[in-house]
């Protein structure tokens, strides 16, 4: 099992969700986060005081998948999120030790989807 974390541009969220739906990955947790990579943030000015390189709003997706779904999921995120511009984001794939479905108490692979 793997835990996939992706940081993407907020406006690409709908396309990524659509691409995930197409490969039947429907379970995803989404949150708004602030981030900065090689793409520097924009400067903000408040009554003349400059705040350089402020963090930019990004969207974080978290998806737990079985091994068969790792590559399709990563592919779908890339397909939906890529613009080719700096700031498109990153995908991190982590090992996942355990999953528990709270309702039934099921564990592991069968609890994941």
């Amino acid at each position, binding site marked *: 099992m793997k835990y996939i974390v992706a940081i993407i*541009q907020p*406006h690409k969220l*709908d396309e990524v969700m659509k691409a995930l739906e197409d490969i039947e990955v429907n379970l995803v947790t989404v949150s*708004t*986060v*602030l981030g900065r990579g090689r793409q520097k943030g*924009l*400067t*903000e*000015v*408040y009554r003349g005081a400059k705040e350089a390189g*402020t963090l*930019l*709003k990004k969207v974080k997706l978290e998806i737990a998948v079985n091994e068969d779904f790792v590559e399709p999921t990563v592919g779908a995120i890339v397909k939906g999120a890529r613009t080719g*511009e700096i700031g498109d984001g990153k995908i991190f794939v982590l090992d996942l030790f355990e999953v528990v479905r709270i309702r039934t108490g099921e564990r592991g692979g069968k609890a994941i989807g």
Partner: protein
Amino acid sequence: MNSGDTTWVLTSAALVLLMTMPGLAFFYGGLVRRKNVLSALMQCFIILCVISLQWVLYGYSLTFGPDAGRGIIGGLEWAGLKGVGGQPFADYAATIPHYAFMIFQCMFAVITPALIIGTYAERIKFSGFLIFTILWATFVYDPLGHWVWGIGGWLRNLGALDFAGGIVVHTSSGVSALVLALLIGKRIGVDEHTFTPHNLPFTVLGGALLWFGWFGFNAGSALAANELAANAFVTTHVATAAAGLAWALIEWQQHGSPTVLGVVTGAVAGLVAITPACGFVNPMNAIFIGIFVSIFCYIAVARIKTKFKYDDSLDVFGIHGIGGIWGTIATGIFAEKAVNEAGANGLLFGNMQQFLVQCFLVLVAVTYAATMTWVLYKFVDALIGMRVEQKQEIIGLDLTQHSESAYTLVE
């Protein structure tokens, strides 16, 4: 000179200011996405600054100044408020200082271009917007105001009725908004999914402030604290109530639930429609005007816009354009001399002529506003551009045009 009249008109001027800022600003600000809320507030605020100055420098003179010939435009005799002062100018308002009339009208000149910002919200370039706004006020609002309201104005001489600005304010801004929506194009991504309002409580707050301020707009247009002002106050109130309720009921029937955005939208449509009529019709007919405006505007916003897929982002045409046109024509139907001796009877009281004049008024205003808006947009677009770059639009206007964010996620 009458101190009661003066008090009422000065108070009304302040009420109309409240409609633009914070009323309209928050009405629009709540409807856009989080990344663009400051741009909506900023556009309203800067219009308040810029057009107020334009008005005293030359706008008032072009609109209300001594006719320069054939009722087309006012002369520049009153530029810089020369000759405008504390004494009344009897042809416009005999019982209040000329200054009071001028500053009351100033607030109208301010709110009209501010209404337009809803159509190109979330993608307009600030510098282009500023130049366009000044040109639009000068070449659309000022002449149209002169034609309809100025002494010697050619539409006024035809007997056109527009008590508080159904044509000059709402039809002109609404029709211009449609042309602008077509010219500037859709927001990125609007075809794929609906952009949901980021703060509906702001929109409700702004809408409620619009209702409150509109008493100054309409009842203040009596230019005196008299029975006509009271009539306008009452008709404004009941038309708005009827329109708000009607919209909620339409939505309830169509979608299974009445929405708060729907009731506020209906109320604003009601305010728009009663604007030209409020000093000429009785309260029962005002209720009819209110009910019908919600039906017409609902069709425009929920059916016509979806069918033709233009991105009039916050429905300036659908509410102010359609509502203003309906109100102007409704004035030709429901107006009666029993309400206002200086007005006229409408179709319902046997006067076909007034109905035709009102239709002609709509035709002239629509044609003129649409043509001039097209010309001015093309001019400013060629000069400095009207739309932000794609990347700026994606990041949002708050950060890219104003270097600020409305909300922080962390301290």
